[in-house]
């Protein structure tokens, strides 16, 4: 399944780049993300609660960022599984300076398996786009209002100021937890965000019963 799209974040490209590589930012901005654990440089295990319409649940996956060309592009690879489905995706992300901020464009190639694959391609695409939109909105907000809400282990905590220290990768094995959030009216829409930033695949996840958030 292929999904493309782009969003504009009102911030300069270097700030956007740094934000998208900061796990403390990610855990707070990825819709439904509950837990992000660094497993290596720009590699994470994550737990996300997400769903498409009636199909919601918790999903465990991994995400890694590679081919980093600072302020220009990166490739994100992610893979995850939840009770009724799996997702594997490779997303090419590019950054461009535009009037008013940074345009982040994504081109994803994804395979969705299991029951959630049965939701229908257009649903998956729609959720992905909505999730991407929500995610980028969150990132924009995180960059603009510096009280980074993430609670992080000892070495990492970002308090106030820029939420990211440029270039610093999260310490290995650091675990970030999402702050308690007021449930939003459409939290049933939280798709899985695929790792650092982009897209998509709103898909999946667990059966409604017993897994409803």
């Amino acid at each position, binding site marked *: 399944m292929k999904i493309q799209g782009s969003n504009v974040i009102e911030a300069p490209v270097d700030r956007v780049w740094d934000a998208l590589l900061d796990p403390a930012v990610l855990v707070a901005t990825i819709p439904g993300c509950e837990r992000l654990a660094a497993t290596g440089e720009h590699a994470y295990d994550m737990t996300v609660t997400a769903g498409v319409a009636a199909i919601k649940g918790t999903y465990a996956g991994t995400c890694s960022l590679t081919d980093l060309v600072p302020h220009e592009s990166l490739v994100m690879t992610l893979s995850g599984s939840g009770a009724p489905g799996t997702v594997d995706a490779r997303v090419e992300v590019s950054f461009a300076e535009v009037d008013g901020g940074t345009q982040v464009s994504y081109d994803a190639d994804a395979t969705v398996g299991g029951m959630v694959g049965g939701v*229908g391609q257009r649903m998956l695409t729609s959720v992905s786009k909505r999730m991407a939109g929500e995610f980028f909105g969150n990132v924009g907000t995180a960059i603009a209002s510096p009280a980074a809400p993430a609670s992080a282990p000892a070495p990492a905590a970002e308090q106030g100021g820029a939420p990211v220290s440029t270039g610093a990768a999260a310490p290995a094995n650091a675990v970030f937890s999402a702050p308690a959030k007021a449930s939003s009216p459409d939290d*049933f829409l939280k798709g899985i965000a695929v790792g650092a930033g982009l897209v998509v695949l709103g898909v999946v996840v667990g059966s409604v019963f017993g897994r409803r958030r």
Partner: protein
Amino acid sequence: MTTKLMGQGVQRVEDQRFLRGQGRYVDDVAVDAATLHAAVLRSPHAHARIVDIDVEAVLDIEGVHAVWTYDDLSGRMAEPLPLLIPHPTLTHGRTQYALAKDEVNYAGEAVAFVVAEDRYVAEDALEAIRVTYDVLPPVVGIEAARAADRLVHDDADGTVPGNVGARMEQSTGDPQPAIAAAPHRLELDLTIERSACTPMEGRGTVARWDPDTNRMQVWTSTQSSTGVRAVVAVKLGLDLGQVDVITPDVGGGFGVKINHPWPEELLVPLAARTLGRTVKFTEDRREHFVSSAHERGQVHHVEVGFDDDGRLLGLDVAFWHDHGAYTPYGLIVPIITSTQLLGPYKPAVYRVVFESVYTNTVMVTPYRGAGRPQGCFVMERTMDAIAAYLGKDRTEVRAANFIQPDEFPYDQGLIFQDGRELEYDSGDYPASLEKLKELVGWDEFPAFQAEMAAQGRRVGIGLACYVEGTGVGPYEGAHVHIETTGKVKVATGLTTQGQGHATVFAQLVADELGVKFEDVEVVTGDTRRMPYAVGTFASRAAVMSGSAIHLAAKRAKEKVLRIAAEALEAAEEDLEIVDGVVSVKGSPGSSLDLGTVSVLSNPLRYAFDEASKAATQFSVGDPGKPPVPEDDEPGLEGRDFYSPERATFASGMHAVIVETDPRTAEITILKYAVVHDCGNLINPMIVEGQIHGGVAQGVGGALYERMAYDESGQLQNASFMDFLMPYVTEIPDGIDIDHLETPSPLNPLGIKGAGEAGVIPSAAVFAAAIEDAEGITISAMPISPSELFHLRQEHSA
């Protein structure tokens, strides 16, 4: 001696559950909070290209489990639905995709499929889906189709030039020379409008995928369980053996449910497997109007040459059949029109040519009568026109053309809808006509008409004759099993939609086996019980399954007698079976009940109850022989099939006396008479019920029912408020019925089909009677009071 049940009006077993509200129709299956419900987004346009389908707004609706479009279908599911009955002349057949691919060709075509927690939520989701269409001008009506200024199909899947799906000709010679040379000639142009079956229960399908056994179970409101099973297996990539189709109680079919698979019949099982849940689809009434099937629309041109007695010397018929947007059922309907148009007559030379054309409307598949009403209308109007031309009595002209009783079997020289010769096996048309004239008071009518005229009232009488090929093949089968309790379980694979099969077939088994009617239980339409079957259509169930059941019961009886003879140490010829007990004739003390025979038929190692102890290894069996002989099987079962060489031809004649109001043009039925020959009757009460029902649908079709399409291809009367089906008030108060029975030589019980008969001559008979009352030629049906009013005005102008 017990009375035979054959020929008795036995009360129906089905009624016991129906009357208590315990029928199990498809929407009654899997009533459970865990069942998911489907809804279908249908095209609002008659002809359009799909540009985009946006489901974004569906995300805001809680409880939606899936939204599918064509892009979600793959493999066989992405191919068009099967063309069920191919024919060499159907050179440009087309069927729809399960979900529209790039184009929609009728308003109602399935575009997206939604599965949700319940139907309310699913319909909410439908409203939230935004489809962008590029609307194309549609082709509506036979005239527009023939003119072919625009084409229905002209796309990536190919072009259908001239909107002609097929052109077919059958003849017994070239009638033109005979017509030219005949003493008299006439030409007629006749039109029959579209109508539809509209059973009280619409379509529905429930499916459940069992991951423990890797099997798909489908419940669907169909007329062919085995047909659906085969297609589901193929389309879903399953082995036939992995699919079970169970036909629940069906609230009427009348033909529309013989077509399969509906898109939903595939999408629901696919969803059940994909989502791992039981999924149900039940259509609503509007959907039935715009996405099932219609029938009847044809335009005919007749040229006939005849002699002074009205005998047909040459008959040349050309007609155009509107088959809607797709042709899944092939050319069956127009082929039936072509062949059954001949009725009980033998024109010297006959030719029929038809073109089956596409329009951007709902597709056309059989509706009770399946093309015969149109053929009968054409032939009977022709007969009436000949009689009027010659100044002769309408019954005399017909009688002059009848195939005589001593001419059977009569080969009409054409190929019938089953691919076999159109050869009538038996009938007595002169006798039927005599009965009809007597029943309706034909000879007394002129005096009555004059008397009414003197009072300023207009009355008219009409008659119409038909022949109906029933019991078409290829076959049906039956399985009879006598259990150790003495209960008899019977299964046949075709289906039931209210015809009382469970009762009628139990009568046959009770008679053949000698068991009590109450001890026989019949199941129809369940592929688990009888996987070889064709379906219920063409008035074939009594003939086909009745015969198969009779034969299977016979086999079971043979085994009963063989085992009992040995056990009772008597000769088989000396045994009789009465009320489930086998005894030596004249020696009531020497007897065995069937349950015991059943026990004895299955040598056991393990007893499971008192009675079965008698069959265990230390109780019974000759150590010198194998417990089950080489050419035998354990158990008390009989299985057999009936596969005739050709159809068997029922016939009948109707007459009606109507009164038309001189001012309001309202049409009132004063008397309706039916003479009916369907060979031997199994249950006269049920046959009569079929006639009543057929006549009612005939009245509806003749006077009230039409599909009102506008020029944009929109069905304007897609509801019961505007599609006028008869209530009791539109039906004659009492129908006079007389029977003739010319048994069929083609099956052991001499049965012919009865299901469709009532509706076949209706359009013809009402047209004739109204014409007789008004003196205005009626050449189009239906005719409502307002249409009659306008005809009067045109006529007097």
